[in-house]
Each structure stands twice: as structure tokens, then as C-alpha cells.
């Protein structure tokens, strides 16, 4: 039970840290630029 709680906290902190680090290094803008344009591959244009 204790081990489970520790892993939950570690994962929670890791998740928040990775999101913040990714956003700081500019990944969020890559996501936005892809998401606001028509994804040719997704819709089957190629």
C-alpha cells in the first residue's frame, strides 16, 4: 500500500514536471501548429 502511494506521488510529480519542461522547450507550440491545420494524413489525403 505504501509502495503504491509512493509510486502515485512520484508519477504525479514526474507528469507535472514533464509537461512543464515540454512546454518550456516549445513542444506546446508544435502541438498547436499541427492541431489548427488540417491533418492530411488523418483525413486520408496523404
Amino acid at each position, binding site marked *: 500500500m505504501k509502495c503504491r502511494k509512493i509510486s502515485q506521488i512520484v*508519477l504525479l510529480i514526474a507528469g507535472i514536471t*514533464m509537461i512543464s*519542461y515540454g512546454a518550456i522547450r516549445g513542444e506546446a507550440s508544435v502541438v498547436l501548429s499541427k*492541431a*489548427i491545420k*488540417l491533418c492530411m494524413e*488523418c483525413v486520408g489525403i496523404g
Partner: protein
Amino acid sequence: MDKGKKLLSKKTAKIRGWIQAAATLLTNIHITNLFKGKIYQGKTKTACVPGLNCYSCPAATGACPIGAFQAVVGSSKFKFSYYITGFFILLGVTLGRFICGFLCPFGWFQDLLHKIPGKKFSTAKLKPLRYLKYLILIVFVILLPMVVTNSIGMGDPFFCKYICPQGVLEGAIPLSLGNTAIRSALGKLFSFKCLILITVVVLSILFYRPFCKWICPLGAIYSLFNKVSFLNIKVDNSKCVGCNQCSKACKMDVDVCKTPNHPECIRCGACIKACPKNAIHYQFMGNSCEKINSNSQRQTTDIN
């Protein structure tokens, strides 16, 4: 008091269809765009939605997490996505595959298809196919976009391009209906993806959630967190009489008594509804929904 006790878990399971409908609506809030044949381009698309929902859907509120991951690892600037991996970890450790059962639009779509009357088949004998989704995750979502790149170092989103039926269902179909330029550009790849969509639709009528069980890489990711997630399913052994009604009710082929938080469990609550002794309930951060409810019941009794 025993009758009024508990039931928060049961109630949650009972209104699952409504929660799925609301989640689908929130994930695709820009409904008017469906008739305009253009996609929403606002800043909320910087964030990902929890379920599988194509960002080329005209109504999409946010980015598809699987598409976004491939976009980042396939870009010339980055070879790994901390942003999306962190998102997967955060949501996975909070809810696990509750997202598949309650929040995913494509999961809801399959649930609705399975309600179509007709002969239904069990997937219990097809359990080895479960591992296919992990292979798809590793090969099509991670490795191929990372390794197979063009001259400027950019990789294709291989899963979105060759496997995902959501792009056709939510993207190509509404966009081509409202936009003649897109309609005229659809070719062989679209036909191939339509075939995949039709296959998934037919299989979903016959089997329960075939895409979630065998194909979905997002489900594969969330399944890794099912055993440690804050939200989980708890079986009260002091109440359990071993009737096995829970496992019989489980359409994801989980042995609920033995492994209530099995990676395949989508927390749909079918076992909670089926249990004649009310021995199964949702638990969040160690607090049982049953206890919360019985405490509030007790408080109400005290006030009265």
C-alpha cells in the same frame, strides 16, 4: 439506512452513457464548424483532450494526444515529447482507463454500435489479441515517426495515416461534406481508411469495443497505469460471496474478484451494477465512494 447506503458508485455506473455524451460534447464543443467545413483554430488546441478524438474534426476543442505525440516526435526539432508523455502520466495516474470507459468519444461510439440488436460474440477466446495494441503503440506511434524521416528530418504520423479510423469518421466525412476542395482531394488512402472504419464498425456491432481491446494505443498507455491510478475499483472481500456475477457481467473479460484493476478494465462499472451484495465500488485516493456516501447519509441522519 443500508438501502440508502453506498450507491454513489452504482449511480455513477448507471449514468455512464450520459457522462460519455457530455464528454463527447465537451471534446467537440465547436459544433457549428461541422456545417462550415473548416476546423477550429483557437489556442485551446495547445492542450490535449483525454480521449481519442481527431484534431481535424471541425468541432474539436483540443488536440488528439496520440496525434500530438506523433507530431512532436516526427518534427525536425524534437525526437521525444516530454509534454505529451507528461500528459499521459498525469492522466494515467489520476484516472487510468476510466478515460476509456467514460471520457473517450470513440469508446462511446463503439458502445452505441454494440447496442444495435443482433447476435453478439464473446472475445474471451481472443485474449492474445490484446497485446496487439502495445505493438501498435511501439511501432506506429513511437518508432516509425521517430525513425522514418524525410530529408528535413520530419516523420509521418503513421498511426493516424494508416490505422486510425477517427480521422475519417470525425475529420474526412464532415469536412468533405462541407468543403468541395477537400472532397475532390480524397484518394486511395481515404478509401483504405474507410475500409478500416467500416471493419471497426462491423466488429463493434458483433464484439464489445474491439478497437479499445486490440488496436487503441491510447488505451494501451492508460492501461499501464490502471494498477496505480488514484481512481480504482475495490472489491470488499468481507461482503463478496464469490458468486462471480461481476466477471460474467464484465465485457472486457476481466476476472474482477482476482484482478479488479486489471490493465483491460475500463472502469465501466458493469461489475458494480451486477454485484448482488454491493461489494464492489469505485475508490479515489484510498477513499471509497461508498464511505463518502455513507458518511453524508450519516450526517443527514444526524441533522434530522
